[in-house]
């Protein structure tokens, strides 16, 4: 865990001077960054340009040829009720995903703030869900959610919370989205917790000591010292949660299995582009989603991020 503190200290030392170069080394920096730039140019920037362009071209494998269509693709996707449903669903995924992952992340971060025996092991075990593939998580949770043999049903029934076994995913929109979202929250909470923890450990302990001397309660300390000072970490956790939930696909693909009840923007885009082979409409949805993702991330950073000086 000392690694976190070391990083926090390093960050304060600021940027260092550039190394002076000898003669004949002027080409070297370009040679060093060129392979990186070629990759990013060819397989990230160029495709993005193609997406932006393709959104305005009619491109349907079942209805050739391709031609410029202006906002035609956007009109088609907006008039599609399944697409509109996926917008609404994705909004719910974002709300559940961000609130739950950040809330749990703060809770876990606070739990791990003070040193105790075995903290390193607890931290390692907490990170596990973050490291697992989303698809695998969807698969193991779908067995937990199973309507006939699932452990969630049997546990809740024996605890008398429910009277009959429930179909958690597949019937009701909000319920389905909540339970699919929960699987993603399971995956991304460790990230939020680590970001919160890193900010927590950068808070000087003198602040708490002073508060103790002044007789502040634990809750007052959390509210007045901890939460305001972890804003930078929280900002990143919110953005990560936002981007992940706007892009939710793996868990939906496994648990929702093509139904529209809980379809996400990404699963709908996948269906339109690779199921219906309508690349034009797929591009239009992709462009909308890309712009929304970037805009919301910037907005979240602007709202939450405030530079903290000690």
């Amino acid at each position, binding site marked *: 865990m000392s690694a976190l503190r070391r990083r926090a200290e390093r960050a304060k030392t600021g940027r260092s001077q550039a*190394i002076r170069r000898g003669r004949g080394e002027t080409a070297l920096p370009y040679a060093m960054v060129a392979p990186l*730039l070629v990759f990013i140019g060819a397989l*990230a920037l160029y495709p993005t340009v193609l997406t932006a362009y*393709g959104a305005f071209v009619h491109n349907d494998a079942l209805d050739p040829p391709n031609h410029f269509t202006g906002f035609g693709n956007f009109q088609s996707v907006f008039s599609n009720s399944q697409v509109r449903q996926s917008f609404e669903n994705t909004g719910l995924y974002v709300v559940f995903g961000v609130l739950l992952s950040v809330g749990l992340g703060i809770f876990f971060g606070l739990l791990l703030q003070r040193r105790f025996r075995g903290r390193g092991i607890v931290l390692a*075990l907490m990170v596990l869900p973050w490291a697992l593939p989303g*698809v695998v*998580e969807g698969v193991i949770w779908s067995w937990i959610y199973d309507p006939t043999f699932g452990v969630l049903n049997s546990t809740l029934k024996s605890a008398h919370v429910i009277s009959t076994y429930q179909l958690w995913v597949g019937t009701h929109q909000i319920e389905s989205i909540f339970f699919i979202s929960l699987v993603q929250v399971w995956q991304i909470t460790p990230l939020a917790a680590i970001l919160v923890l890193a900010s927590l450990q950068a808070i000087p302990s003198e602040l708490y000591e002073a508060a103790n001397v002044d007789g502040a309660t634990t809750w007052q300390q959390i509210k007045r010292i901890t939460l305001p000072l972890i804003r930078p970490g929280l900002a990143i956790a919110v953005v990560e949660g936002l*981007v992940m939930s706007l892009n939710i696909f793996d868990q939906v693909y496994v648990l929702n299995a093509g139904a529209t009840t809980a379809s996400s923007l990404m699963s709908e885009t996948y269906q339109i582009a690779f199921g219906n082979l309508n690349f034009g409409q797929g591009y239009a949805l992709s462009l909308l989603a890309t712009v929304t993702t*970037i805009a919301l991330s910037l907005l979240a950073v602007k709202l939450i991020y405030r530079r903290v000086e000690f």
Partner: protein
Amino acid sequence: MKRSRYGWLRVVGIGVLLLWSLFPVYWALNTSLMTNAQAQSSPPSFFPTHFVFSNYEAIFGFGPSSASTAGGIGRALLNSSVESLGATVLTLVLATIGAYAFARLRFRFQGFLFYVVIATLTLPVYATLIPIYTILTKLGLVNTYLGIILVYTSGFLPLAMWIMYNMFQALPASIEEAASIDGATTLQIFRRIVLPIVRPGMAAAAIITFLFGWGQFIFPLVLGSTNSTEPLTVALSALSGRHVVPYTMINAAAIVAIAVPAVIVFFLNRYIVDGIVAGSVK
């Protein structure tokens, strides 16, 4: 002391944290070691009583019940390994070299180029998915290891570069300045002095890249959904989509996909936390 008053709360909290983090994985492991009849018993058994390994034998193509699943998990395990490792090596080499130039050398358009690389960090999957499919189809790279490795690399490079950039920035420049005064060339400084120091940072970037590669789903789903290239994620989703496959076997396949990241998390956790922090805070 106030702390002792809240001590029991912390213990309960840690208990909740551990249950939440581990139970789903434990449940999959538990199910994978049962017969189908046991897994469907009510109430469910929370411990495997007989330790049945037939599910694992079946998904790898051995034993009597393998026919129903075609035993494709072995190949998928190989595919996942080749693709994730290939992408990790390529990403790490390119990101480390590029990040050093951005962090320590000075050249024209440096700020602009750096900004371009960092800006691609914000690009969601949507932005590139369909075009990458069409580009790789044109190049004949769909359903090849090379195609998938190239795509993974392009996706992971910005984050790995950012992690390595922060690691280089955190080094005190004095060592490099001293070496420079002693007449060492930039490349000598990079290879002999800087690289050995940032090895932990490289480990962090490599581990995070590998885990990302291991978890990839939508790109390989689109780019390589035949047995020859499909990774564990795609194979597992296909397995769970076929309703004839018993859940005990599906969970065994899930445990195979979980095992590799779980071992990495358990033994190399320090680097992961370090890498996540280096990749995001600043």
